[in-house]
């Protein structure tokens, strides 16, 4: 009798244990800058990732190969916008049971990080790290092609600015000349003017009169704005982040430089610009890959706000990444088992590589052959205390 009770109790315990073991998790770890001047980016990305995971989990989670469902677990690490820390953090994540990492924030972390990854999958002679990375923020042009394990969901600035200048030309044919302002010591802004804006403006029929250069942390823009004033262009395009953008705009106000149209850098379409120099930035036009104009976008914004983050083109990319990953994980039938970790990572990588389109918050995003994204975009303009949609090319 006692033996039967004992056996029954043991069986019950196993059953209960088995039921508890049904709570499977898939770990997706984010990383980015949570210290330093770009701290807000990391905070927002983390909030977006957690909000997205929460939404996915509320809908049941991710379906695994054996039909069971797993909850997504999110963790986030700070890399301080420092290359060595970024590499160390990704090695740490790769050593954990995470299936993929989402990040980084800074392009100067992304470039070295992608460099330590295996360049071509299945290259036995290449001892690079075999771990997939899906970038939400780091936007410097052309980074994903560094490694077949690197994927990005960041806007394609060439396409966006081409569209901006095309639209300006079409809707305001009296605008003929462009003058630039560029932050020379920051990889992203520098490339965005020299490689993107200048080129796309000329391609769309504008005459580029020249550019004024300054550094990221500069404080005195008198000479540069004087050059700008002399050029007297119809359109002034400033490829700079909020701090120096604000410095330049305030100097422009001081010297009475008022171009007919002001164009800004993608990353500057955020609260930072409005808080730093809202008055002077009024009317600046910036192409962006996110504005809360769709139902999904508004829902994502509100969800992210609940996790104490702001929704902008950067953090919403992180949100989108989570849903794309869910889709890929289910399509590639990952097992979610601890022993199949590397196989699952490889499946996710292959799945991401196969994608031709993904569903974004603004519409369908195309994926390119070199693992970049071609995201739908619209133009926003600083009006009052917020960014208002100026034109939706879709």
């Amino acid at each position, binding site marked *: 009798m006692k033996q039967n009770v004992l056996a029954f109790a043991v069986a019950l315990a196993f059953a209960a244990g088995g039921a508890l073991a049904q709570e499977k998790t898939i770990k997706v770890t984010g990383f980015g800058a949570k*210290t330093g001047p770009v701290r807000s980016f990391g905070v927002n990305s983390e909030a977006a990732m957690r909000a997205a995971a929460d939404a996915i989990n509320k809908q049941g989670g991710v379906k695994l190969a054996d039909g069971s469902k797993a909850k997504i677990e999110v963790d986030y690490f700070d890399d301080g916008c420092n290359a060595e820390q970024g590499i160390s953090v990704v090695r740490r994540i790769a050593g954990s049971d995470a299936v993929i990492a989402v990040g980084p924030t800074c392009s100067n972390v992304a470039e070295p990080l992608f460099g330590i990854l295996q360049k071509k999958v299945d290259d036995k002679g290449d001892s690079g790290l075999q771990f997939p990375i899906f970038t939400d923020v780091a936007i410097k042009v052309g980074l994903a092609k560094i490694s077949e394990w690197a994927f990005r969901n960041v806007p394609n600035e060439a396409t966006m600015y081409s569209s901006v200048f095309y639209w300006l030309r079409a809707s305001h044919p009296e605008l003929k000349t462009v003058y630039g302002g560029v932050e020379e010591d920051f990889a992203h802004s520098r490339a965005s003017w020299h490689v993107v804006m200048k080129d796309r403006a000329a391609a769309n029929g504008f005459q580029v009169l020249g550019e004024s*250069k300054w550094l990221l942390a500069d404080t005195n823009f008198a000479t540069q704005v004087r050059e700008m004033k002399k050029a007297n262009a119809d359109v002034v395009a400033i490829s700079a982040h909020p701090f120096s953008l604000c410095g330049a705009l305030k100097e422009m106000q001081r010297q009475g430089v008022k171009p007919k149209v002001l164009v800004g850098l993608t990353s500057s379409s955020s609260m930072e610009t409005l808080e730093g120099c809202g008055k002077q930035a009024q009317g600046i036009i910036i192409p962006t890959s996110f504005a809360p104009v769709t139902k999904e976008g508004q829902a994502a914004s509100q969800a992210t706000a609940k996790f104490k983050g702001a929704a902008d083109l950067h953090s919403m990319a992180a949100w989108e990444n989570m849903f794309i990953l869910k889709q890929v994980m289910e399509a590639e039938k990952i097992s979610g088992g601890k022993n199949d970790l590397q196989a699952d990572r490889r499946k996710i990588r292959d799945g991401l590589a196969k994608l031709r389109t993904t569903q974004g918050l603004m519409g369908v995003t195309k994926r390119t052959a070199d693992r970049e994204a071609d995201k739908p975009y619209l133009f926003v303009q600083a009006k009052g205390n917020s960014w208002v949609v100026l034109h939706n090319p879709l």
Partner: protein
Amino acid sequence: MLDILQAISDGVLFGATYALIGIGFTLVFGVMHKLNLSYAAASVGGAYAGLLILKVLVGAAPWQVFLCAFAAGGVIGYLVYLLCFHFIPLANPLATLMSTVGMLLLIDEIIVHTTEGMPQNYPAMFDDVMLRAGEFTLRGDLLLVFAISVLAMILLLALLYRTKLGLATRAVSQQPVAAQLCGIRVGGVNAATFIVTGLLGGLAGAMIGASVGTLSPLLTTPLTVKGLIVTVIGGLGSIPGAIVAGLLVGGFENVLQLWRGVTERDLYVMLLLFAFLVFRPEGFFGRKAATD
């Protein structure tokens, strides 16, 4: 020709902000013979703290923000003294150097955490005043900053040479042991020096914030470097030297920027420093025999 003159005047006027920071650096250098690397960060921190008054008194006037920054600077200055200098024996200059580095990192992080790294709009006075003479323009608000630097210099010199505290400060600076023997509390004098330079630093931070129009944690490093360069060129411990050097560096870098572009500009400022170190190591007005 007008371009160069305009560039010089733009640069020299902005140099007034460097002068303000330089005065603080050179005072601590000159009095305590110690390097306070956290000074520029503390000044920017004071400026940020000045913005707190806007939370209490919505719609406060710029001068009230500046006053708050001034006071906050003094408090921060005292804290820096307490945490970095008071407990560390004088015989360990390396330890105080490193502790001020730690302080710089700490202040930077506090600023980033409380503001999420976002640039803060800073109120300004006379920022729309531009004095014009034909094509030539001068920024009114920078003239105010210059005036404040000169005023600060006069007040500090008066403090140093006409008050008992100043006398004690000079005594400690020249002969700490003898000063102690005369009954001067070295600790108290050093603390007072830090409070005074802190007050000045808070004001400098506020003035810089007003001139730039926005505050950002990005400001601390370039201000530290410029402040140190200005201190050396002006002469260690010389307040008028710091002002002259600040204006010189401001004008020089702007002219070089006009001539050689922004990416090479700072290289030439370094070369200017080296030129002074080689040909005139005591700076403009420093004492010739620069002992340690």
